[in-house]
């Protein structure tokens, strides 16, 4: 449907372009004067006035019609459907949409609901049709009104080019405003649902509580705990994995950067840099697979065999512990995340080391220093703030990384700093809370937004600090 309308709008705009162009030429010729703008500019002006209003109508309809259709469908639902638990009701309406659109439902519904599904499906299709036809008519009216306006306005003395350029400028500004709107959208959607979450769970309990078990009974008759939302174990787990990742990424990344910028020949640079870029381009889900099925089992076997060796010796307890270590440990997720961050750290540090002025190096060599001494005593101190910024950015990446930890770190919310234990992180919990059966108003689901807000704020602060440091440092040598 929407494609059909878009096609109509495109066709009308094309019509307006050619019509406007012809009209401008004819009117200029009739008056026998030279027009301010060329006919093509008049054509574009007509195109904008016909296309923009109707496109605006279509975009607004695209944004709001889903919500309106949903409210209309919910408002007229039958009592059988009303009696469903909220999250089942949502799923039911979802299926009604699918049935209405001529697709199979995703679930099988029991007897009275099966008929209801067809009824509601038909209703949803009707609502959609009404909305679509309404949108189409509104868009058409907008196009016609725009066309009329243009038809009256086109005159040889119309400053069509300037007008068109103003429109283009406004459009470009709107494009860059999308970036700001995205930020506002992120902040509002996180804040809105987090506020609802903090109505049922106090902020202090969330930030300082040490017990995390978000399982809440979804139905009244279900056996389940009341849930505890103390996020400290998640923060500890995230921190632990981040530290392990940085222990891998910082030295390896930094030393590769030093090697690449100070030692490597032109050819080896040309070979090594693309390889590091490949490492950076591998999707995180692939790293997760690697962690879960290669690194995890390998490290478990390694620690278990060490444990078996120690059992019976003076370190019997340690041996017993090591022999029972599982695949999912913080070390696995952290180490693989560290590998993922190597190219990130190395390319950032490479840039920073390269931006240290050559004169500092030359001065150091002239005093008889070796390369390593130059690096250690001159370059690194000079580049230190920048490198600190790069490491902060890497930390923010490590905190926000999701797939590796989801696939390799586990779900047990333990308050521990032992790298061989399974821990869980903020991102893992967000994924767990929001996948599977869910009800959008339960604290369990809303907790994900509380965690998301925390994550967003922490990474934001880290990024801003890091960018400030890097920028301030760059200015020093510019």
């Amino acid at each position, binding site marked *: 449907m929407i494609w059909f309308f878009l096609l109509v709008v495109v066709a009308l705009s094309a019509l307006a372009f050619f019509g406007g162009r012809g009209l401008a030429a004819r009117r200029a010729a009739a008056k026998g004067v030279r027009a301010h703008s060329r006919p093509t500019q008049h054509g574009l002006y007509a195109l904008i006035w016909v296309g923009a209003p109707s496109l605006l109508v279509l975009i607004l309809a695209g*944004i709001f019609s889903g919500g309106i259709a949903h409210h209309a469908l919910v408002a007229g639902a039958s009592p059988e459907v009303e009696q469903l638990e909220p999250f089942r009701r949502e799923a039911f309406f*979802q299926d009604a949409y699918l049935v209405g*659109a001529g697709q199979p439902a995703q679930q099988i519904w029991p007897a009275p609901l099966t008929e209801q599904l067809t009824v509601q499906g038909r209703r949803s299709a009707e609502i959609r049709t009404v909305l679509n036809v309404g949108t189409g008519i509104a868009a058409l009216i907008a196009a016609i009104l725009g066309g009329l306006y243009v038809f009256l306005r086109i005159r040889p003395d119309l400053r069509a080019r300037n007008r068109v350029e103003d429109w283009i*400028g406004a*459009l*470009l*500004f*709107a*494009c*860059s*405003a*999308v*970036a700001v709107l*995205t*930020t506002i959208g*992120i902040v509002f*959607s996180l804040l*809105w649902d987090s506020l609802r979450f903090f109505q049922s769970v106090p902020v202090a309990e969330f930030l300082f509580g040490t017990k995390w078990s978000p399982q809440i009974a979804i139905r009244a008759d279900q056996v389940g705990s009341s849930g505890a939302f103390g996020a400290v174990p998640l923060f500890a787990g995230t921190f632990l994995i981040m530290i392990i990742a940085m222990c891998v990424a910082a030295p*390896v990344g930094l*030393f590769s950067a*030093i*090697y*690449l910028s*100070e*030692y*490597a020949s032109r050819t080896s640079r040309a070979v*090594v840099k693309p*390889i590091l870029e490949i*490492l950076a*381009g*591998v*999707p*995180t*889900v*692939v790293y*997760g*697979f*690697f962690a879960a*099925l*290669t690194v995890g089992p390998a490290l478990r076997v390694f620690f278990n065999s060490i444990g078996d060796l120690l059992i019976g010796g003076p370190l019997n307890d340690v041996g017993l512990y090591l022999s029972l270590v599982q695949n999912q440990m913080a070390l696995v997720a952290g180490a693989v995340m560290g*590998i993922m961050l*190597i190219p990130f750290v190395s390319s950032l540090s490479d840039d920073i080391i390269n931006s240290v002025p050559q004169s500092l190096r030359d001065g150091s060599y002239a005093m008889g220093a*070796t*390369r*390593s*001494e130059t690096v250690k005593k001159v370059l690194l101190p000079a580049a230190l703030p920048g490198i600190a910024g790069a490491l902060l950015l890497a930390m*923010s990446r490590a905190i*926000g990384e*999701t*797939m590796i930890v*989801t696939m390799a770190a586990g779900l047990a919310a333990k308050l521990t700093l032992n790298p061989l234990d399974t821990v869980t992180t903020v*991102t893992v919990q*967000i*994924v767990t809370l*929001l996948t599977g059966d869910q009800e959008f108003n339960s604290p369990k689901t809303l907790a994900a*937004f509380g965690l*998301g807000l925390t*994550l967003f704020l922490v*990474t934001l602060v880290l990024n801003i600090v890091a*960018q400030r440091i890097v920028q301030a440092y760059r200015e020093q040598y510019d």
Partner: protein
Amino acid sequence: MTDATLSKAGVGADTARVSKLQAGIKKRHARERRFKLYGVLAVSVAIGFLLLLLGRIIEQGHTAFYAHEITLPVYMDPARIDRTYPQGTNFQLMTAEQELKRLGIQDDDKGTKATAMRSLFSSELKFRAAAIVRDNPAVIGQTVTIAAPASDEADLYYKGEISKATPADQRRLSDEQIAWLDRMKSSGAVRTHFNGALFTNGDSTEPELAGVLGAVVGSALMLLVTALIAIPIGIGAAVYLEEFSPRNRISDLIEVNINNLAAVPSIVYGLLGVALFINWMHLPRSSPLVGGLVLALMALPTIIIATRSSLKAVPPSIREAALAMGASRTQTVFQHVLPLAMPGVMTGAIISMAHALGETAPLLLIGMVSFVPGIPHSAVEPTGALPSLVYIWENASERAFHERTAAAILVLLAFMIVMNAAAILLRRRFERRW
């Protein structure tokens, strides 16, 4: 200075100093070598990890590209086939019983062995047999040769992934079943072939029938939505910021904003998608439309940054020349600067699309973790995507899904390599240095 030292101190003290200095130089050079070694070590660690990663995935995944097919004569028993409803016949069990008879094995009265034999054939056998009967009912009462995939466990055995050496209680196939599989193989009924199903099927709960096509189409639709939204808006925003925006607080704010957006964790975009597109706008869950919108917002900052840097690379002389010829600012930008910057812009856009293709976390939140069989036809119906398929298969309990996960990763990487290669080619071919 040396003269002064010579005259003041004795020759003995001097040689001591020289040797001390030489020892120091030796030490310093050793330190230098060690330091360089660390660098080499770090680079080789990074490269080693990459090779290990790719090697492991190829090692785990290459077996998924071929599969085994069992060809058996099936007597279409008129007593067991319902002519009006051939799909209802248990062809698998029927074939299994006939095969047992051929192998000369007596079943017990509960039919345990027939059930064990039956589990060696894929359920595809049933569909193929039913299709033959439906197309030509005359075959009932005759013997037909039917080729069908081996079940996932049987396939794994033929590939050598299930070994006889493992204790029987730790593998999914019994000694008896393995003996049958060996006999079928030696009788020439088993054929190894390229696993076309992997590329032509949608997802399935049965590993031997599961394929990536549904996810590939889903990912393609999603990228289409992303590209249609993110590339024009990204270029527009970059052109505004680079060529038009006045230097004021608002444009500074937008700039800081874009830099920060580029570093927002991807899962936060997923939360935005849930709250905005699904809960508020009621767009269909787990559809390529929602996925594409979320990825578009994510790709936007990268595209803006890439476009700005290639606009910056166009020398000001071009702009000045155009302006001097009487072109307006808009004409200058759209007729001269942007076309010259286009190769760089497209390179950045393709790379960010390749990045969006591999993004997984936001897709999990908007519902792309559910099992969706079949191949999507439009951008508003529930689908899977390649990276989320990797996640789903990795979590599956059947062992045969492990090799398929690695194969799906290889498919994903192949797409990314193609896109990146296109970007590099574009850069090599068209990029101009001023």
